[in-house]
């Protein structure tokens, strides 16, 4: 979709965003810069599905931090600091976020090369922890390399005995320069880079990319390909949620269930393979449609779904009806609804805190306008609520897959795209990935090539939530909290 574009003075920006946030349904999608000379802010309206893009030019390398009045922007500003070398003055937590501090000086990869970094930015990039003072406090560093097969991220837990008082999340080990790379390659190849932003979210990333490009080109994909895209997205959601539940069961020590869910995740991935030829749906969705029509295999997909549903139901029942599971998860990693909305949580985490935000409804595309699922809401905001939301979404995804399969429109799967992108245009793709709201933003320059490609992964919002939810839990609950958030490292670090 194409956002409404508005220019603002930098000193008005904070007030405008705040005023917008007062209005029901408005939320901040993304705050970033194009080349270090301006701030752009994408505002979303979850009710009407409208989007607004504010652009405010910057006179210098520093600006008054927006975080002081709008807490949820703190992570965005840290990212801007890393990528563009801009300094938000008065930011309470200015430290590396996306690019690890081991890059000792700011190299600001997305900055306009002509513009040098002023000397004062070349300060050390030491990651200053929030030190908690007091004799009994001890600090527990965990990671960045973990004992399991997970991505790198470092956590610093400040503890009093078993109680965690503060958790600092230190990321940026996986920065690969995806946003930069996309601007350097021909736009037709960009989809391969875009979907590599987070490999477990490959389909959602590819879809968001496709939507952004299509909105630039004003192309509408065929109904059949839209159906197939939704199918792919739901299969991804299904597989990943099952995988997360398996991980949760494993962390609970519920090994039999964990093994069972891991097996079922394999079945769900087989659905993906049948649909696209890739178990992780890579390379399937492209701007203009999808690459491959699984025509003959649809009945096979239907059969596998039925099979999966039959196997899944008893396992899910067995898992959640166990009172010990219930008790273990309840009140673990609780995130209050007010803090969740103040920090702009998205996806499963938000819905577990009773925030009814699901891009499948708010920014419906593909088959969603016709048959979008009801939003799975929970009140409590604890690990149990998040697990229940996941389970509800597994069920709704299964239903959705069945519905789509039963009346998939016929037709072609791709459409011809123009050769060039339009000049000075802005396109956005918003997709509900399995973790939550995923935004791809494309801005082209006057030659029609991509000038700035911004990706906002759902984890980007939710990492703060994990840090808050860990407070006043015990150390041994950390794995469960972490798993209930199921955040992506690579999606965040880009």
């Amino acid at each position, binding site marked *: 979709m194409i956002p409404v574009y508005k220019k603002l003075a930098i000193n008005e920006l904070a007030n405008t965003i705040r005023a917008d946030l007062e209005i029901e349904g408005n939320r901040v999608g993304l705050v970033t810069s194009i080349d270090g000379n301006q701030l752009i802010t994408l505002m979303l309206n979850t009710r009407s599905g409208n989007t607004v893009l504010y652009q405010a030019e910057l006179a210098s390398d520093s600006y008054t931090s927006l*975080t*002081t009045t709008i*807490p949820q922007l*703190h992570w965005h500003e840290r990212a801007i600091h890393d990528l563009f070398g801009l300094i938000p003055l008065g930011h*309470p*937590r200015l430290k590396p976020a996306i690019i690890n501090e081991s890059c000792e000086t700011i190299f600001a990869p997305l900055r306009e090369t002509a513009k040098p970094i002023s000397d004062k930015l070349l300060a050390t990039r030491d990651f200053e922890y*929030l030190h*908690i*003072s*007091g*004799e*009994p*406090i*001890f*600090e*527990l*560093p*965990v*990671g*960045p*390399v973990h004992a399991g097969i997970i991505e790198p991220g*470092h956590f610093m837990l400040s*503890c*009093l*005995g*078993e*109680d965690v*008082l*503060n958790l600092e999340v230190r990321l940026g080990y996986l920065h690969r320069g995806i946003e930069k790379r996309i601007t350097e390659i021909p736009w037709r190849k960009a989809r391969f880079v875009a979907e590599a932003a987070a490999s477990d979210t490959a389909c959602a990333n590819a879809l968001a990319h496709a939507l952004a490009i299509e909105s630039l080109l004003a192309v509408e994909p065929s109904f059949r390909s839209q159906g197939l895209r939704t199918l792919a997205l739901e299969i991804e959601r299904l597989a990943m949620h099952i995988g997360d539940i398996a991980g949760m069961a494993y962390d609970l020590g519920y090994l039999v269930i964990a093994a069972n869910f891991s097996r079922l995740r394999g079945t769900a991935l087989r659905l993906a393979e049948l649909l696209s030829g890739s178990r992780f749906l890579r390379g399937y969705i492209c701007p203009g449609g999808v690459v491959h029509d699984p025509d003959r295999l649809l009945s096979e997909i239907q059969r596998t779904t039925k099979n999966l549903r039959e196997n899944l139901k008893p396992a899910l029942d067995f898992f959640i009806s166990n009172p010990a599971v219930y008790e273990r998860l309840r009140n673990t990693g609780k995130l209050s609804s007010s*803090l969740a909305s*103040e*920090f702009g949580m998205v996806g499963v985490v938000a819905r577990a805190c009773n925030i009814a935000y699901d891009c499948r409804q708010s920014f419906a595309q593909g088959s969603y306008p016709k048959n979008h699922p009801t939003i799975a809401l929970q009140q409590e905001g604890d690990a149990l609520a998040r697990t229940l939301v996941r389970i509800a979404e597994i069920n709704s995804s299964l239903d959705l897959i069945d519905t789509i399969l039963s009346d998939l429109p016929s037709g072609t799967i791709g459409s011809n795209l123009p050769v060039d992108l339009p000049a000075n245009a802005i396109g956005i793709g918003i997709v509900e990935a399995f973790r939550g709201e995923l935004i791809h933003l494309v801005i082209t320059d006057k030659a029609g090539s991509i000038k700035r490609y911004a990706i906002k992964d759902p984890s980007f919002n939710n990492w703060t939530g994990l840090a808050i939810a860990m407070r006043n839990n015990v150390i041994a609950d950390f794995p469960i909290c972490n798993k209930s958030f199921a955040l992506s490292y690579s999606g965040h670090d880009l």
Partner: protein
Amino acid sequence: MHFSAPYPIYFGVAPLSLFLDPLAAIFVLLLLTVTMASAIFAPSYLRHLTGKINQSYFWINMILFIVGMLMVLLSANAVTFLVFWEIMSLSSAALVASDFSSHKAHKATIIYLGATRIATSLLAIGFLWYYSIFSSWNFVDWKLNSESLPAAILVALGLCIKAGIWPFHIWLPYAHPQAPAPVSALMSGVMIKVAIYAAIRLFVLPGSGSEELAYLFIALGMISALWGIVFALIQTDLKRLLAYSSVENIGLILASVGICLWAQKTGMKEIALISFVAALFHSINHGIFKSLLFLSTGAIDSAMHSREMKNLGGLSKKMPWTSFAFLVGAASACALPPLSGFASKWLIYQGFFTIPCQWHGKAMIGISLVSIGLLAFLGGLALACFTKAFAISFLGRPRSAAINHAKEASPSMLIAQLSLTLITVLMGLLSPQIISFFSLVYQSILVPEEAAISGFAKFVGPSLPLLPLAIVLTLLTCIIYYSVLFRKRKQLKLSMTWECGYGGLEPTMQATAGSFSHSIATIFAPILHYSTRFQISGKDRRHFPEQIQVETEISSLLESSIYSPIINSVRLLSGHFSKLQAGSIHLYLLYVFITLIALLTLGAKS
């Protein structure tokens, strides 16, 4: 071994009379051992306190204190006892106050003085009562029967205050840490045992036993033990930790005395013997290992000028011998075989265990079962407490820069510590012999049936093969160490502690004393009044706190809800009384007059 020597020196009503029986001899031996160690230790220890305390003041009081204790142990009648008891109490109070400059020392001295005053007055009343019943000041004439029971209870309470039994232990954690280390060693090691000695002499030696006193002792003893160890566990000051641990041990000893009294009353000869020996043996053991621990702490103090665990850490590399001595002391305090602490704890267990086995006494069976469970729990807590004390102070990485300059204690300090260490180890290894010796003591004083003694000896010998165990253990360890680990010493790589790739852990990234005991402390939060206080500051405290300050607080339930109200009301009352003292001669004459009339009327009546 009986030795009695009355002297024609009178304290008003009774002569100075001393005697030495095997029981007193054992305690005198303990006193002399600890005195010796303290005396060797003190000169170089006092060097680090130069300017803070006056040497001659210290030594004079020290000698008075030791002589006081010695004479208390030797006194044969109540008056002699009371006189030297006072000398012992006052000189030890003076020693607590030896650091004139410290405000803490003042407070500690005041509290300690208050406690000893009350203890002495209770003792005095009790002794007078005894005298009115038996019309003799001699301890040997005093029996324990229903008539003398109230007096006995008064005396027992007085002794409990001195011994630091719950709920009168309040003075102990103030006074012991404030005194210089050799004095703490004597106070904790010997002085509180003097009270136990008196309890044994007055209540056990008459031989008749008493159920009431027994229940009182067992209840107070077990509560003190639990209370003491829980408080010890959460202390961060080493000396306070040790002081509270003394409360635990003295509680166990008192409980054993209680069992002995009960068994004497109900005629369970064997149990009486076991628990008597247990009380005696544990008194001696605790005297030795607690003095050892206090002296080692003194060595740390003189090297580091701090006893706070947050400033210590990694000392074992700087002070290997001191740390070895402390380790042995700590292991003995945890009752690890084959050290002396185990042997006496084992006897305490046996005392309780034999009761349900003999199937005698309804309530006592329940009590002993609960006590065994409690003892096990206490054992676990003591383990947590002393592993914390040792590991946080001596192991890990230094928590403050001062540690890099720390030096091993001077040779004389080491000799003192190591000799006590040696005694602890030897007493453990030779425990069957020592135990049978102590049972002979009981026999020589009380003459129980031969059967009990021989049964007891048979039962201890094979059950406590500590010497062979130690030998086998040492051999096995050496063999395994040599064959598995030592051979590979060339391949040994030294590296940083796992630090998540950050290049050096900060001192805060290791166990802290507060964190180590936090889990247990939260379990006992109701009695400890354990709470965590947060102070969060910053412009946007809700979202981005800038500073978080955390403190844990404990306030003893006793102090906050019983003692302070009493002290406050006393203070209030004394405020009112002070009005009586107006300074006017006429008013005083009026008082004299009223008193005169009152006395005359009373005299006329009788």
